[in-house]
């Protein structure tokens, strides 16, 4: 029994999965701390789904070990108590079309051995959370795709898992359904769940995640807190606009210690400045520009987003 800290929700060691002679997941060592929202990104075929399926016990690893909450996941035994800790939402979500929304959730609540009155309370809570209370007596066949997706999420969390594995949960959803989904994930995170989420929609992940893992060709090539990734890989840029000519502005910036590079934004009276410095340095720069009398009309600090970081790392992300 490894002495894994109780704060670690998931730990994998040398996790490998081979299909034919193709290695889908290659010697992955992954650690996710309790309470994190961990985003898994990577191109199609990078091994994200296989990794998540192995963590969900839906796929047996070829070699390697998985620890959930410090306890080794055994594929020889059914490990019912560990299964209760995990909620898994695959990218496809087959449902029973002949059941009503309530009966479907009731069935899964019973499969996870929830007893009344707790079961009924829980059903009401998750229906409210996924905003399907008004559809509780509707047949599943009559629901829209977004509703079915939310119902699947309700099924995934009905037994109060502490670890949620979501594989492409927003694929195929319209912007409103995606926003609703994001809100639910945020509520679940606030409830203390550890969430591993794979998605091609990096803007969503940037909003939700505390850590990011990047997979390519089966390898986990990057795994770090989002803030660290930004610090390490994201350049800060400031768009500065002025009323007059750009020359005085360029002159002023030339000797500034935090300014690395400037370029003129074509067609606008604006400079794009690559800036290395913290928020205080940004404020100092703005103050010095105003004090120098340059007629500043715009001062807009930005950071490169997750997608740019991902592309900069040499990966190609389908979004």
């Amino acid at each position, binding site marked *: *029994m*490894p*002495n*894994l*800290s109780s*704060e*670690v929700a998931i*730990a994998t*060691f*040398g996790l*490998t999965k*081979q*299909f*034919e*002679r*193709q*290695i889908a997941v290659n010697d992955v*060592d992954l*650690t996710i701390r309790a309470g994190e929202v961990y985003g898994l990104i990577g191109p199609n075929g990078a091994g994200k789904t296989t990794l998540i399926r192995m963590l*969900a*016990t*839906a796929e*047996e690893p*070829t*070699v*390697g*070990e998985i620890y959930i909450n410090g306890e080794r996941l055994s*594929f020889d035994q*059914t490990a*019912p*108590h560990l*299964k*209760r800790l*995990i909620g*898994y939402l*695959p990218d*496809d979500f*087959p*449902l*029973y079309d*002949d*059941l009503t929304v309530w*009966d479907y959730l*009731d*069935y*899964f609540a*019973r*499969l*996870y*051995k929830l*007893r*009344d009155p707790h079961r009924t309370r829980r059903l009401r809570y998750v229906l409210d959370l996924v905003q399907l209370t008004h559809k509780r007596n509707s047949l599943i066949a009559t629901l829209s795709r977004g509703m079915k997706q939310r119902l699947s999420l309700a*099924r995934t969390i009905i037994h109060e898992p502490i670890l949620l594995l979501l594989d492409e949960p927003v694929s195929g959803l319209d912007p409103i359904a995606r926003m609703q989904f994001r809100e639910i994930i945020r509520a679940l995170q606030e409830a203390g769940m550890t969430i591993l989420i794979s998605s091609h929609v990096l803007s969503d992940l940037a909003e939700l995640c505390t850590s990011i893992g990047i997979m390519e060709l089966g390898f986990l090539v990057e795994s770090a807190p989002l803030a660290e990734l930004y610090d390490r890989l994201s350049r800060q840029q400031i768009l500065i606009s002025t009323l007059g000519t750009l020359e005085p502005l360029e002159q002023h910036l030339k000797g500034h210690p935090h300014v690395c590079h400037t370029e003129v934004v074509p067609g606008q009276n604006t400079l794009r400045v690559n800036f290395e410095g913290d928020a205080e340095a940004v404020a100092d720069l703005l103050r010095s520009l105003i004090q120098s009398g340059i007629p500043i009309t715009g001062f807009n600090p930005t950071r490169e987003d997750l997608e740019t970081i991902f592309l900069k790392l040499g990966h190609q992300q389908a979004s």
Partner: protein
Amino acid sequence: MFNPWFDWIGDVNAQMFREWKGRLKPQSVLIVMALAIAGQFLLMAHFQTQLPSEFGYPVYFCEINSATRTCLMDAQGQPIILWGKWWQSIFQSVNWCLILLAMLPGVYFLATDVDREERQGTLDFIRLSPQSSRSIMFGKMLGVPVLVYLAIACILPFHWYTAMRASAPPAFLLSFYIMLMAGCWFIYSATLLGGFLSKLQASLVGIQIGSSLSLVMVLVVLMWFVPAYVSWNLATTWHPYTPFLIGPNASTDSTNLQWFHLPIGTHLLLAHGFTLAVLAMGSFWIWQAVDRCFHSPGRTILGKAQSYSLVAFLELLTVGFFFQEVRYGYHDTFYLDNFIAFAVLNTVLFIGLTFLLANHRQALLDWARFRHFYTPTSRQQTPEPQLPRATRVNLWKDLLLGEKSPANLAIALNLLIFAALTLLWIAGWGSEYRPAYLFAAILLTVNMMAIYAAIIQLMLMMKNTKRFIWTVLALALVMGLPLAIAAFYHDNHQLQAIRWLLLSPAPAAAFYSGQLGIGLIVQAFVAQVTALVALNGKLTLQLRRAGESASKTLLDETSRRAALGQPAMRSALTK
């Protein structure tokens, strides 16, 4: 419908609750009850038409006037009806209706349901729940055919009434229900196993069988299981009651069927105990297989460790039937006849066992590539990692007990169990038949079985997705060809015929010939051992290649191409 009692059922078995809830809709319940009751009326109406009219026809159920071949009339001019026979015929029909109703629609519904859940992927969610496979299987068995059970419940009062009118003894009714339930339990279990394996079947034959699986299962039950099961019961448990199943003129004589000299053909209690024990054991093994397939669909249907006890059980079961009293007196080939029958039965059994036990390509590739891997010991990325150091798995132990290793050695050990039990059986014959010849026959038979097993395991390593079909074809060729050649030489070249017969699925058949000498036996033995070495050598080579790392494959490929003056290929990695 939804009351505390129903809710309690749901807490006890969620699967059964879900099936009942989905199926026991008022409309369906009313339709099934109406159909069951209408069926009984139709049956009665049909038998009503079989009663003789005032003209003395038809004559099925009346005293017959042998002169006119019409019904005998009483003083009132009414035909003398044999009411007992009439009710017996109705009872007989209801018995068959119950047997077919219990088995066919039940099997169809179960196969369709599990196959659909497996293909849609909904079964995966059930797998991920903390429910045991037994609980799910039990729920499916009691839940999916619930409308069939309801129909049977509607027929039961009519069945009891007809039994009473037909003067059927309560002992028969009790036996009928017990054996019907036991048979259904067994065949339903087998159906669920077939359903859980539907994905595997699709991968084996390279095509999605889909809903036709249910029809295949129903056909198997109709054409094989029901006739075999009813025949067995008529010969053992129900032999005094045969008129209630196959007509008033059926013989009620007992058979001389024995198992290790236990008179299961004559002693009713023994017959019931034996049949129920065999069905219980059969169901136990099926549930073991379901347990494996349910939680890990990629595994072999049977584990190697399980196979040894299963083979010992099956060998004891089958050899027991060869301990029969010699009814028609001793004759020259009596022992050889028995041995050949036993050996052929076992060849079929071992081929089936090899298919259950043999790993397919992916498992063998995994085993070849990753068998030597240690469990990782310490990783810097993990908080305070202190993983235990794993021990290297012993190769022999892995081959005999491992999940992903090739099945050849495990089959060899099972063959040893077969050979040991056969030797014990033959030792009981004393020196009445040439023991050395029988020993040689066992050796040649075991070798042939090992060759078939090696072919199956080798063929299942094929890259072709239709590897199962190719394996069956190759096996049919290897088994059929020597027999065909032996038949070709039979008239003119006796020695050639014997030579080929020794390499057939029944080498012992060659021992009938007076021309068989020690030289031919040695030749056959050498040929078999050569084939075994070649097949196992080929498998070892393939596994060794599969075990090479991708980088080694790439390097080999690159150096090969460099030697040929060709550019290196990235695709070598994926070979």
